[in-house]
């Protein structure tokens, strides 16, 4: 038996969270040290999985572990990664690592950076969330996938409600939790129906997704149940018209939670919708792809347009997330090779990019105590490092060649063009709008004259912040310059989906 690396990655955050809760509340620095050590370890392990998969010339599901959990009902703890999930596991590792760095806190009393109030509980809940996210990405058992999915949902409530932005946190946290819970329970009905129908069809009582792929669900069954399952999960992916919770949640959440939320949590929705909705109900996906494509197309343009008119930086990034996640779903809805590969890369690229955006916005807010774009200016002089980071993020967001955004968005548009050229044309408007709002924001926030009330109040960012920014930038540039480190891998995952779709 090999080293159970995926279980270690998944359960390490839970164990660390328990450990932190057992530590005395006054030992803030020790708690932070445990958090950082765990995050580093998880990043190393997830990077190792990624590198092994990439250079080990692997394909299909790898690192498979299986433990019987409840054999009577066919529930097992079955873990494994493929070309689609391995990048997402790495992404979670990256966001977890940078999130801990950003939340470390600052001794300077003028700076409200990081988490000062009850860091023990904060990191424990954050790690519970992280463990749930890892669990969803690596689960090959539908019950366990759902289990971890729910674990990832509820810590958000506490993280936003306790440590969030005072003005909207109660409202936003409750709204977010209810939206996500409604989505997940709708999907649950679909999951249970799939489970029993499989039993009727094959006589095997199992939640194993690899078995469910061959369950032979009838065409009419897939037609009925595809939408509840896909949309139920996609709520977490911020799909229009169920995206409303997402920008509110981003705005209310503390920095690290915003990073998690936009960086990985929304991928969770898209990923689960793809894994469960498209891969297990491929016929249904074919029949409904037109509707998904319309939803996604609206999200792409509408999200970008709303982002354009925002004055609050976090709302701007929140709606840009809706737009970019719309691209992911748009890629999925094409059900062809190019679109799906683009969607896979876009999930990673957008995760890193938004995490960077929120990190920098958080740094600015902690120092300037405002996020309103008109009230900011001249940040580049005091925070040059953060400025460069934000600009790189902006270039990724615009889909500039040489950055990961291009590698992701170009195939998506190619795929959409093949299926429905009109949608591609309309969706591409979003690129122009995105470029406009990103450049306007960069000009005003970073390069215009600094308002007088801010002069002298903005302190430089810390070393930890710089490490976090560089880590995030590193991945965006590497993938942009060497697409070969990710695209072939995602292609292997996509091949599997195409096989299920019947080579379409």
């Amino acid at each position, binding site marked *: 038996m090999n080293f159970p690396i995926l279980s270690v990655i998944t359960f390490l955050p839970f164990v660390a969270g328990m450990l932190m809760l057992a530590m005395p509340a006054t030992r803030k620095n020790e708690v932070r040290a445990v958090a950082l050590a765990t995050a580093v370890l998880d990043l190393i392990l997830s990077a190792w999985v990624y590198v092994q998969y990439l250079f080990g010339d692997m394909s299909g599901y790898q690192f498979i572990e299986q433990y019987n959990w409840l054999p009577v*009902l066919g529930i097992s703890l079955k873990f494994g990664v493929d070309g689609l999930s391995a990048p997402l596991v790495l992404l979670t590792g990256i966001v977890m690592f940078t999130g801990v760095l950003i939340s470390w806190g600052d001794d300077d009393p003028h700076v409200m950076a990081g988490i000062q109030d009850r860091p023990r509980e904060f990191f424990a809940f954050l790690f519970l969330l992280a463990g749930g996210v890892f669990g969803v990405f690596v689960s090959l058992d539908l019950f366990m996938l759902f289990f971890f999915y729910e674990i990832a949902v*509820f810590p958000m409530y506490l993280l936003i409600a306790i440590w969030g932005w005072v003005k909207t946190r109660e409202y936003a946290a409750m709204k977010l939790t209810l939206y996500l819970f409604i989505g997940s329970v709708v999907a*649950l009905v679909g999951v249970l129906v799939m489970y029993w129908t499989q039993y009727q069809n094959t006589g095997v009582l199992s939640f194993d997704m690899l078995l469910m792929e061959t369950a032979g669900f009838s065409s009419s069954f897939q037609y009925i149940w595809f939408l509840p399952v896909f949309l139920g999960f996609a709520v977490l992916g911020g799909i229009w018209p169920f995206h409303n919770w997402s920008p509110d949640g981003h705005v209310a959440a503390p920095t690290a939670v915003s990073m998690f939320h936009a960086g990985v949590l929304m991928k969770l929705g898209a990923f689960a919708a793809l894994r469960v909705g498209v891969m297990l109900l491929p016929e249904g996906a074919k029949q409904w792809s037109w509707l998904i494509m319309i939803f996604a197309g609206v999200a792409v343009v509408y999200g970008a347009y709303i982002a354009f008119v925002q004055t609050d930086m976090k709302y701007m990034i929140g709606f840009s997330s809706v737009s970019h996640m719309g691209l992911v779903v748009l890629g999925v809805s094409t059900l062809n090779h190019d679109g799906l590969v683009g969607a896979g890369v876009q999930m990673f690229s957008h995760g890193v990019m938004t995490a960077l955006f929120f990190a920098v916005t958080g740094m600015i807010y902690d120092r300037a105590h405002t996020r309103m774009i008109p009230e900011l200016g001249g940040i580049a002089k005091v925070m040059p490092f953060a400025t460069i980071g934000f600009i790189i993020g902006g270039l990724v967001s615009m889909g500039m060649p040489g950055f990961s955004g291009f590698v992701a968005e170009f195939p998506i548009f190619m795929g959409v063009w093949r299926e429905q050229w009109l949608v591609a044309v309309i969706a591409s408007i979003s690129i122009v709008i995105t470029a406009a709002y990103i450049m306007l924001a960069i000009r005003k926030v970073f390069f215009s004259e600094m308002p007088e009330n801010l002069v002298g109040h903005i302190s430089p960012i810390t070393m930890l912040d710089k490490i976090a920014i560089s880590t995030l930038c590193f991945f965006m540039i590497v993938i942009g310059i060497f697409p070969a480190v990710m695209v072939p891998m995602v292609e292997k995952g996509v091949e599997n989906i195409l096989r299920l779709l019947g080579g379409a």
Partner: protein
Amino acid sequence: MFTSTIFASILPEILILVLGVILLIVEPFWKVDQRRNVGWLTAGGLFVAIIVSLLLGQPGEPTSVLGGMIRFDWFGFFLKILFMFAAAITALLMMDHEKAGQRGEAYLLLLASLLGMNLMAVSADLVMLYLSIETASIPLYLLAGFIINDERSTEAGFKYLLFGILASTIMLYGFSLIFGFTGTTNIYKLSEMFAAGEITLPFFFGLFALLIVGLGFKISIVPFHFWAPDVYQGAPTPIAGFLSTASKAAGFAVIVRLFFVAFSFGDNPALLQTWTWTLAILAAITMTVGNLLALPQTNIKRLLAYSSIGHAGYALIGVVAFSQLGAASVVFYLAAYIATNLLAFGVVMAFSRVTGLEDISDYAGLSRRNPLMGLMMLAAFLSLAGMPPFGGFVAKVFVFAAGVQANYTWLVIVGILNSIIGVYYYLNVLKFVYLKRMPNEDEENHPVPLTRPYTIALVILAIGVILVGTVFAPWFSWSDSAALNLF
């Protein structure tokens, strides 16, 4: 003939009786200010009884003993263990109750009620069943009104008594009709009699209605739920916890055994559907009413009362499913629910002991006043809301799975809509615990200390809630073997 099987079948009851006698003998010799220690004795004795029963009292093949009065099987055994666990925890929670915990009678009444519940779980005869229901109920009437100089408590006791007696007499009338129709009171013979006799649909429906009044009262389903909020609010908090967990679970034990065994109607699916559909409608109404009425509550005990009404509705889905998975999921649900709800009531008890307050808004800042209690509250309420990794999540999924399997998908959808309502009001409580601050006060100056019995009880329960929710295989296989005995 008193064989070892008979001995094993009533071993837990014998141990409980012995424990009660020891209490009676020991208690008068203790000084008044030491009588709290009776709680240690009760809880310790019950834990010993659980271990001894697990070692010596395990059932083999289902057998009828004591002249067909008692059925010795896994179903009854597993539930008995659960009841004894709940009673032991309740004894711990009672110890530091100002007015109830210092008096030995309270613990003795608890044991008497427990004895009745244990027998409810194993009764195979209507006469035995009725006697055990009364044995379980009468001490609870007394316990609910135990604080005689408190108006709410006496009101609770009296209300519970009146409702309870009315319900049980109606049920008794139903039992007598059954006897008149079939000529037997043995549950296991009833099914053959029903199959042989030509029971008409209207007659059966009337019979079923009479029974469900009595049993519906025990598990507090709508429309027999009116007593629950008032009684829970007025009764001493640990007793309210016991009422909402063990007493309710005992009611479910009777419902599952009686309906699954006597009303299976293998050759007459129309009759079977009569009662499953009736129960399905009752379950849907119960969930909806319980959860909707929980929304506007400001008192935490009333909130828990309405939430426990809602949970009775969820558990009924498993009964409605009428399958092995259904029965197993009910038993599993009861296990998870007992641990979860006792935890919730335990925190409420520990909090009101120090502060004397019971409103939800009084919980503001609890997580700063006592972080451990905050976490306990988190575990209990998230488990009630059905969130992993706590027991409530898997329990709900199993019950829903059983419902979908039996083609009651509409009922599962009702259940799911209700759990969304549930999430809202459970999170609302957690909002006070974690987010709100005490008005104009510094929480540091107002700690909420836990005494030792509470710490022990709450830690055991919290571990239980997490274990049921994560390592669910052993619990489920026990529930499953319990369910297997019914078919």
